[in-house]
């Protein structure tokens, strides 16, 4: 049994997702044919043996709760532990810059106080990854660490533009400096980029909350950075694929990456599964006119048209003669005969009537809002 409970900050919003995050937090944006972005953080924790997980929710939490229910599909419907909803305080703010706001934790102090475990694993809810944290938990214990920050070593090629915090480490991987990207000249940045996942002693976290709650909106990482001299802060490296979704370009590119076998192997084809809400759709039906190439297709679809380099979510109907290229079609969309889409993202339940042609570009994919009828 793992000696940690989890907290996922599922309350970060974004104004750069062009309507996909208009009425939902990033964590609840559908991704990869049958998942929501949150599923990746949640499944990684569950697969690491964590069975008590608190979810910091945003103002618009209906889509999150709709997806999660009592947490049964993640094995979190339990007597001992389970899924806890922690209402965040940043109710009105969608452009919240803080990742781990202390106020959000203070508001839910009870969740941290009533458990007996040693450690708390904290993750943001807007990243795509499949990481087993068991090794990190072991290491944290062996080193008697106060805080363990998970980081990824960057070769310049796959530098994630969204990451803001970089770590300087000594030979023992103890963190000697925590850099904020904005405060450092480009070349001096450490290659070790913090991936917004950390492990902290529960008692220490409670102390921090008590001491800093009067500061209002202050980020846990800021506090750790300031106190790194008195705390035992270690880094734990991960080589797993991990990507943050903040802009529509991130969303489109990371989705299309899934058509690459290497990416799917790292995310889905290993031992640890990514769990999601199960809806028991029937298998997807292909008619004799269907033509599908290099695409991911979820269950419950009826496919009579042409699909190339695309991702099709659950319960989509593609009529004969329609042509879907380089597009992402979310659940329950209906594309009528002879309609076409290219470089387009259709949010849920969009209907595109016959002969319409929707065309975006690779750098600026076209986004059609939920339930739009065209």
């Amino acid at each position: 049994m793992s000696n940690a409970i989890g907290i996922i900050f599922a309350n970060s919003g974004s104004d750069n997702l062009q309507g996909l995050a208009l009425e939902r937090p990033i964590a609840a944006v559908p991704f990869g044919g049958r998942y929501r972005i949150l599923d990746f953080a949640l499944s990684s924790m569950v697969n690491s043996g964590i069975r008590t997980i608190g979810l910091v929710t945003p103002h618009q939490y209906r889509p999150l709760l709709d997806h999660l229910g009592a947490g049964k599909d993640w094995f979190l419907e339990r007597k001992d532990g389970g899924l806890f909803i922690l209402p965040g305080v940043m109710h009105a703010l969608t452009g919240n810059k803080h990742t781990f706001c202390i106020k959000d934790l203070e508001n839910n102090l009870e969740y941290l106080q009533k458990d007996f475990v040693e450690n708390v694993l904290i993750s943001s809810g807007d990243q795509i990854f499949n990481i087993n944290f068991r090794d990190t938990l072991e290491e944290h214990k062996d080193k008697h660490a106060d805080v363990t920050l998970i980081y990824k070593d960057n070769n310049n090629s796959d530098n994630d533009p969204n990451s803001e915090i970089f770590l300087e480490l000594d030979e023992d991987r103890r963190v000697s400096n925590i850099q904020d990207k904005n405060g450092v000249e480009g070349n001096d940045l450490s290659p070790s980029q913090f991936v917004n996942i950390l492990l902290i002693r529960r008692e220490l976290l409670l102390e921090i909350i008590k001491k800093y709650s009067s500061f209002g909106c202050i980020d846990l990482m800021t506090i750790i950075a300031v106190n790194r001299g008195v705390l035992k802060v270690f880094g734990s490296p991960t080589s797993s694929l991990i990507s943050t979704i903040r802009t529509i370009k991130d969303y489109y590119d990371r989705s299309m990456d899934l058509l690459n076998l290497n990416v799917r192997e790292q995310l889905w084809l290993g031992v640890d599964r990514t769990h999601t809400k199960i809806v028991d759709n029937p298998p997807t039906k292909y008619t004799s006119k269907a033509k599908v190439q290099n695409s991911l297709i979820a269950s419950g679809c009826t496919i009579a048209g042409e699909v190339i380099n695309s991702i099709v979510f659950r319960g989509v109907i593609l009529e004969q003669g329609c042509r879907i290229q380089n597009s992402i079609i979310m659940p329950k969309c209906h594309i009528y005969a002879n309609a076409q889409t290219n470089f387009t993202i259709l949010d849920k339940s969009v209907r595109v009537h016959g002969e319409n042609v929707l065309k975006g570009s690779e750098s600026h994919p076209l986004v059609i809002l939920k339930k739009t009828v065209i």
Partner: protein
Amino acid sequence: MKRQECIAMLLAGGQGSRLGGLTKNRAKPAVSFCGKYRIIDFTLSNCTNSNINTVGVLIQYKPFLLNSYIGLGSAWDLDNPFGGVHILPPFLGETEGSWYNGTANAVYQNYEFIDYYDPEYVIILSGDHVYKMDYTDMLRFHKEKKSEITLATIQVPWEEASRFGILTIDTDARITKFTEKPAEPDSNLASMGVYIFNGSTLKQALIADKGDYLSQNDFGKNIIPHQLKQKKRVYAYKFNGYWRDVGTIESYYQANMESLRDGHFLNIFDPKFRIFSNEDIFPPHFVGETAKIENSLICNGCIVHGNIINSILAPGVYVGEGVEIKDSIVLPYVKVHKGSKIYRTILGENAEIMSHCIIGAEGNISPAQEGIAVIEDYHQVPEGTVIDAGMNVYRSR
């Protein structure tokens, strides 16, 4: 509060030997059907959709995979504090106990279970039929007719009538005659193997049957004819939907293939009467650049690089480049490697077909089981093997 109005006894212990390689390793109700389902999903979902929350599942033959699939029944919303799914294996008592000897004997041996819930009605179901049916309609009919035993019936084509238990009814739908597999049927109304009994009638009937040493302890063969002789009120409820017995390779194959036709009666896509199942979690299926899929059902977790025509791929199937799968049923986790050709074949779960094999043939070439080839679960077919149409291939042990 444990008394229930109606509980179900689900007969799931049969060997299903006529399904050959498909039931070598598992009980028939646990055999995969129509891609993502297993045969028992239909009956369990019918119970849920009919508000029957207490289901006793009678098991005997190779029960492990079936038991672990059913679990607590939560996949069908059948886990609830007042009732739920109960797995009922054969057991020993202080002085007696034995294997289940016939369907009626299985229920007889579990009478303590029925008494515990003390139901007014007991519905007897079979775990090897594929159909969607709301049992509440049948129960309403049973009450309206003040019936003691009601049989669900369906009209079958005349030429097939001699394969079924055939009923003759009067104008009030009361059954006057019941013949198991008659050579010359005088009706085409067949019993579906679904019975509603009044609780007290069932108990008397089972005790009487237990005392009869000539009886084969079977509901269709013994209990129903005997109760008719006793002039009990036995009625026939007519069911108009889709119903298939999938007890043979041929009928299993046909019922699967029917689901590929448009306007299919079973309509698994109907959101108002959903069929639930206990599936493994998989990512969406991936269709590669060299793939071509026509008129087929494809499940989650498949990776397809070859041609799939008029076929069903269950979850987690891998199909390599240059493979052709036509008119076939591919069960969960099967791997078919580069260049193999599969025609009119059922590939058992976890079977692996190495490259450049040819299995089966197009059309009804072989007289054996309509030319349908069957490969047993977990069998590995070596590279370049040619297997004729209509063959049953078993694992060597």
